């Protein structure tokens, strides 16, 4: 596993979370990300908020 994704910091982990909206992550990236999320509540919050932003934007498109 490349060193740069072996031990993720929040900067790198959050980028991968965002990147996952654009392209499928590699097995190494997924593994490293999971390990980080198990320990990091802030990035777990960010992951949920990304999902919310996605749903919210879709709804914004059609209006109510």
């Amino acid at each position, binding site marked *: 596993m490349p060193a740069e994704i072996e031990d993720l910091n929040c900067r790198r982990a959050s980028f991968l979370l965002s*990147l996952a909206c*654009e392209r499928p992550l590699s097995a190494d990236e997924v593994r490293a990300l999971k390990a980080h999320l198990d320990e990091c509540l802030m990035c777990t919050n960010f992951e949920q908020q990304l999902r919310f932003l996605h749903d919210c934007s879709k*709804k914004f498109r059609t209006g109510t």
Partner: protein
Amino acid sequence: MPRASATDPRAEIESHRPYLVRYALAQLRDAELAEEAVQEALVAALESIDGFDKRSTLRTWLTSILRFKVIDIQRRIVAERQRLPYDEAGAAAEHEAWLDEMFDETGHWRSPPQAWNDPEAALEQARFWEVFERCLARLPATGGRVFFKREVLGEDTPVICRDEGITDSNCWVILHRARILLRMCLEQHWFGTEASDAR
């Protein structure tokens, strides 16, 4: 989202103007042309409001009219000059560095994402959509445009990057940056306030 009385179609159509301007701006990258497209679309919509059959939402219907106006203007632009100028070409190189403002030197969040209280409930609040629109408007020009195309319109990332004339990796950083900024703005103006708990 702001709603006007059903008896006044003009006001109801008008309430969608900020969204429509944002849509036109994402396609045309020019405030004046975007205004022109929206103005023409709103006039056309008022003239044919009887044709709105309510099978879609009013916003979706207005957007479909606007789409044609945008295409007209794009054709005209292509005829007038070969290519639209890219407004922030020089900014691309600084995008990685911009993330320095969001994370400290060890890569930790400077403004850590908090848990949001019942985000789904926010979607039902008209006031929330006003905040969402304001936060979208505050994004940097490129970030706002790319985010709008990707998340609101659901366009494919490679297509967006190509149209913007930027590399995939710059595109990813721009999107990441826009999402963090939007998240911070919503947390500051909605989820982090007592108001969101009281609703």
